[in-house]
C-alpha cells in the first residue's frame, strides 16, 4: 500500500483511501478473529495497487513481483495469526513453516517476473483475451471442484 501511494502521481488520495480501507479491514479481522474479513482486506490492498496501475497507465510496472510477494507474505502471516493455536511449535516445524512462507515469496517473485516478461512480449488480441477469460473461469471452476470433492 505504501508503494502504491508513493509511486502514484495522480489522485494519490484515492489510492490511499482504498489501501487504508484494506488495512482497516485487515486490522479488524486479525484481533477480531474474523477469517472472512481478512480476504476482503487483502483484496482492498491489492485493489489499491490496481487503482494505481489504472490511474498511471503506460508501461508494465517492474515492481509487480515484489508487490505480489509482499501481498502473499501478508496473507500467509495473516492466516497464521488467525489460527491462534495454543500449541507450542517444535523448532523444526516452526523453521519449516517460516521457510515455506519465505520460499513462497521467492517463488512468487520469480513466477511474477516470468509472467511479466511473457506479457510484455505478447501482442494481445481477441484470442488472447478469450484465453485469459477461459483461464480465470477454469481456475475458479477447478478450485471449486477440487474443494467440493475433498471437503469433509
Amino acid at each position, binding site marked *: 500500500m505504501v508503494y502504491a501511494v508513493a509511486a502514484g502521481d495522480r489522485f494519490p488520495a484515492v489510492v490511499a483511501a482504498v489501501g487504508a480501507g484494506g488495512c482497516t479491514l485487515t486490522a479488524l479481522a486479525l484481533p477480531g478473529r474474523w*477469517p*472472512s474479513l*481478512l*480476504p476482503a482486506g*487483502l*483484496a482492498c490492498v*491489492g*485493489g489499491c*495497487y*490496481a487503482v494505481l*496501475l*489504472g490511474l498511471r497507465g503506460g508501461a*508494465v*510496472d517492474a515492481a*509487480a*513481483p515484489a*508487490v*505480489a*510477494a509482499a*501481498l*502473499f507474505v501478508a*496473507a500467509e502471516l495473516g*492466516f*497464521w495469526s*488467525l489460527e491462534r*493455536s*495454543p*500449541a*507450542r*511449535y*517444535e523448532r*523444526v*516445524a516452526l523453521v*519449516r*513453516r517460516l521457510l*515455506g512462507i519465505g520460499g*513462497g515469496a521467492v*517463488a*512468487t517473485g520469480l*513466477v*511474477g517476473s516470468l*509472467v*511479466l516478461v511473457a*506479457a*510484455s512480449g505478447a501482442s*494481445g488480441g481477441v484470442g488472447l*483475451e478469450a484465453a*485469459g*477469460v477461459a483461464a*480465470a473461469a477454469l*481456475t*475458479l471452476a*477447478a*478450485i*471449486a471442484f*477440487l*474443494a467440493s470433492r*475433498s*471437503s*469433509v
Partner: protein
Amino acid sequence: MTRVATPKLGAYAGLASLGLLAALATRRPELVVLAAPFALFAVLGLLLARRPQLEASVALSADRALEGDELELQVQLRADVGAERVELLLELPRELVVEDGANPVLLRLREGERRELALRVRCTRWGGFRVGRMYLRTSDAFGLFRHETVLDRRVPLKVYPAEESVRSLLRPLETQVFSGNHVARQKGEGIEFADLRPFVPGDRIRRVNWRASARRGELWVNEHHAERNADVVILLDSFAEVRRGDRTTLDPALRAAASLVARYLRQKDRVGFVAFGGFLNWLLPSTGTNQLYRIVDAMLDTQIVLSYAWRDIATVPRRTLPPHALVLALTPLLDERSESALLDLRGRGFDLVVIEISPLSFLPPPEGELAELSHRLWDMQRDAVRGRFARAGIPVAVWGDESSLAAALEEVSTYRRQARALHV
C-alpha cells in the same frame, strides 16, 4: 479423521479469481502476477492434499502415586501417512499439572516416523483418573485442509492422599481376641507385667517370681497382660463439605484416614472403613497390605453427594461395626445427620472418637456486620454440637490448618486418660 477445509482455501481461490478477472478487465498483466501465487497455492494444495494416518499411545511411569509425586508420561506417535503440522493435545485432569514438556504441542511427522513425547506431570490432588484422551489436528504444508481426530488411549492412574505424620496412635479401650501389638486388659501370654498370684498346678516354672516366693515362703507366679489386636473403623463423614477453590474439607479427612489406616494395619489391627453420607460405602474390617489398598481405593471413590435423605447408623451393615471396635470419625461437623449418627453410635456403646476437620480455613473472612453475626452464630452452633458430644463422653479434637493431626490425636489421648482417671 474428519477433514475440514480452512477459510484460507476459499480466500485464496477468491483472491486468485478476483485478480485474474481484474487483470482481464484492466488489461494489466501486473494483476495476473498478484493473483498467480494465490491460484498456484490453492491448486497445489488441493492436488497434494492427503489424509494422514496417525496412531498414538500413552504410557505412565507408574499407575499409582501419592499426592505431590511427579510422574513421567510418554506419548508415542506413529505416522503411516505423515503430516506437515500435527497438533497434539493430551487431555489431563485438573489435578495433574504439567511440570515439564509442552502440551499442546505442534510438530512435524514424516511418513513412517515414530516419535516419543515426554511430559512430567505432578499429581496435585488425590483421585482416580484415566489419562490418555488425545486430540489430534493435522494440517498440510499449504494449510488449506485440517484433519481432526480424537484418540482414546486412556490408562488408569490412582493418586493416593499423602500421609500425615502421626506420632502415636489412639489406643482402643477394648481389644479383640487375636494377637497383636496392644497390651490388653485381660491377662494372658505377653511381656507386660500385670500381677502376682499364688502358684497353681500347671503353671510354668519360668513364670515363678522367685523373689516374691522367697519373701512369702510359697510359690508365686507372675501374670502378664495379653498382647492383642484391635478393631478400628474409620468413619468418614461425606454428607457435606466446605470447598474453596480446589481444596475441600474432604482432602484433609482423606489424608488423615489414609495415614491412620496405614498405621493401624502396620500394627496388625483389623481396620474397616465407612464413608457415611449421601453415598454409603463400606469395607469390612480386615488386616494386611491388601486391606490398605482396598480401603484407599474405596476412599478414592468417596465424594460428596448431595442428598436430603435421612440416614442413620442403622443403614450401615452390622458387620462393618464389630463390637468393641474403636470408631474414629473424621467429620467437618456440618451435617445434622452425621451428628445424630455419631451420638447413636456412642449410645450403642462404641468406643468413639471424633476428629473434627475444621472448615474455618476454607471460609473467607466475614465482611460486614451481618456476615460477622452469622459467623458467630454458626460458631456457637458448632460449639453446642461439641458440647453435646462431650456430654455423651465422646472426645472431640479439632484439626485445622494451624495444628497437626498428631496434635489432634494427642489431645484425644489426653482426654481419654483424664476421663479414665476421673472414672476410676
